[in-house]
């Protein structure tokens, strides 16, 4: 779960990371007071849960409070990578002499937390890694042993940072790493950390991600920034997606949800995790026009599968549906078949016409296949691969 910049800064600021004086506004009128309180010149930054703000015009500067109001009205409502800007962080503009990059994340290869430090902050760190690898240090540290600052000192010193800056940067990176560990973050990033003319440092931008699986045990952190205990959705759901989520949570058994809406005519009931990706790719690759992505898995009840099927087949623009899963270990083929048939019939259609592919081999397949044939659907068996089943479905559109 991603935090907004202002939330990330509030959280890190409370834990000893220096942050600029700032104010959050939700209307252009508030910009005047905000600019006066933080002191001009100011920077106004769109608060959205994505990168690429600068390019999209979501970051602007102002010399006076009136100009700040003007700029705020340009930023509010701006759509940045599909997200509408609803609030702006107003900060005093710092006089920066040098920019650094500080981040902590997990390294899946080393399986350890890793502190990443660079003296080329402010730009895309992947680009720095490719073009100037000597300007990046990666320092793994323990998640098990008591935390000790010296690793962070090594990270900073390896780029030949010395003197007073070494101690200050070590302190900031250590606080970032400790916040990362303590709060189950998956990313804690300051880019850039600016060095000011007076030799002090300030986090000009910050981004932290909390692990979804740890939301339950990090409730105090959410409360700290005024969020409810359930956290927030990464992407706002469409009404169609919201209905699918409702169906999924209506019954604890199995998964029949995680629906993402697309605009096409082929409705998809696909699963599990890896097979959904495979099937969806196959639709795209072979010229199909998907109405939705979804994932079913575990052992969802007949009622749940039926409700999901009904929702998808009833979606405006959907002509046919394809039901495709990997060879299942634990999901019962007959129960999914029963649910899909029920959903199609309840929506007022003939299963034999609407279902252009049913490819779920595995547990209880004989029973499932018998049921499908009874309703005029010829099931595809395990000799037909996932992509072949999708191609067959596309050809029947």
């Amino acid at each position, binding site marked *: 779960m*991603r935090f907004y910049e202002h939330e990330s800064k509030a959280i890190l600021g409370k834990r000893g990371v220096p942050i600029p004086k700032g104010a959050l506004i939700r209307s252009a009128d508030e910009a005047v007071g905000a600019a006066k309180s933080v002191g001009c010149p100011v920077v106004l930054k769109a608060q959205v*849960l*994505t990168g690429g703000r600068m390019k999209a015009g979501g970051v602007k500067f102002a010399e006076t409070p009136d100009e700040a109001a003007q700029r705020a009205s340009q930023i509010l409502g701006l759509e940045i990578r599909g997200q509408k800007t609803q609030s702006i962080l107003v900060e005093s503009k710092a006089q920066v002499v040098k920019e650094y990059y500080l981040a902590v994340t*997990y*390294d*899946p*290869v080393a*399986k*350890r*937390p890793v502190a990443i430090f660079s003296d080329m902050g402010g730009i895309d760190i*992947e680009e720095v890694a490719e073009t100037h690898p000597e300007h990046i240090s990666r320092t793994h540290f*323990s*998640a*098990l*042993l008591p935390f000790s600052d010296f690793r962070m000192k090594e990270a900073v010193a390896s780029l030949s940072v010395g003197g007073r800056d070494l101690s200050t940067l070590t302190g900031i990176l250590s606080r970032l790493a400790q916040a990362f*560990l303590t709060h*189950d973050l*998956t*990313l804690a990033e300051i880019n850039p950390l600016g060095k000011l003319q007076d030799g002090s440092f300030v986090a000009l931008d910050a981004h932290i991600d909390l*692990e*979804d*699986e*740890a939301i339950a*045990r990090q409730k105090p952190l959410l409360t700290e920034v005024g969020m409810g205990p359930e956290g927030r959705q*990464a*992407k706002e759901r469409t009404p169609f997606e919201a209905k699918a989520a409702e169906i999924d949570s209506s019954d604890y058994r199995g998964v029949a949800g*995680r629906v*993402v809406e697309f605009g096409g005519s082929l409705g998809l009931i696909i*699963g*599990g*995790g*890896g*097979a*959904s*990706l*495979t099937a*969806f*790719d*196959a639709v*795209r*690759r072979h010229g199909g026009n998907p109405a939705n*992505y979804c*994932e079913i*898995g575990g052992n969802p009840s007949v009622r749940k599968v039926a409700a999901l099927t009904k929702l998808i087949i009833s979606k405006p623009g959907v002509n046919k549906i394809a039901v495709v*899963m*990997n*060879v*299942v*270990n*634990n999901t019962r083929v007959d129960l999914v078949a029963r649910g899909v048939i029920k959903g199609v019939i309840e929506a007022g259609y003939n299963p034999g016409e609407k279902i252009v592919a049913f490819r779920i*081999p*595995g*547990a209880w397949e004989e029973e499932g296949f018998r049921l499908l044939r009874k309703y005029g659907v010829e099931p595809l068996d*395990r*000799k037909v*691969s*996932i*992509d*072949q089943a999708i191609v067959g479905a596309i050809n029947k559109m």
Partner: protein
Amino acid sequence: MAILADAESQILVQGITGREAVSFVRDSLDYGAKVAAGVTPGRGGSDVHGVPVYDTVKEAVKRHKIDVAVVAVPAGFAKDAAFEAIENGVPLVVVVTERIPRRDVAQVLELADIQRARVIGPNTMGFICPGKTKVGSVGGPARDTVKAFTPGPVGVMSRSGGMTTEVCNLLTHSGLGQSTAISVGGDAVIGSTFLDLLPLFEQDPETKVVVTFSEPGGNVEAALARYLKTKGTRLPIVSFIAGSFMDNMPGVRFGHAGSIVEGKQDTVAEKARRLREAGVLVADDLSQIPDLVKKALKQKTPRK
């Protein structure tokens, strides 16, 4: 031969009285796997399908020689259970539990390193050495397992549990059996990556070729490509990477916890490019895998 286990490997199941564990223990026994003991605190003295249950791992390892432990307890207890297995000297720990926070996982893996134990998972369905044993829920009921998995020369590693079965089924129906098939786990941080397991396959004389199933997210494929370029391998590798549609949807998590595009190297396009550059045969469609495997077996060009 196979890797990680053989027909005689003695299995311990932690959380054996849980619903899913009761079910996969039945399937494992039917398949011929040696499930020797189980642990559920407070249920010591009882049994599950004739497998004795103990309160502690300590007691179980005193009475049985345990080669592999399966952790099948709820996420909140998984770290402790894995610690318990590792500290009691179990050399291989398979964590099937889903939704364990990464910090807990990192701690388990660090302890495993210190104690020289290997961890598979978390969020894995386990692994199978066809015709010999299966550990965890992979393959499902024994009658279904034998339809999808057959013994043979292909080593399989998959980031998706379901696709472990799917890929093996595809191979089996093309006359290609498997030496060992491993669901490595769908989380961002896992105990044994492709990179960790490849050397085991290299040492296994039965394995002639390796197939991997990948997803977006993480730096493991990039690291594998680097490894192949610098060290090489005697084994040809065939890879499929699902989720290319996610390349244009950064920050959105699909499928498994580890499946998210956060940077350029996370994308399918970039993974495929790097692996191809390192000599891997990358399949565009899943159904191309068997033909690529056959092609690789015919070439038999040692690249080491």
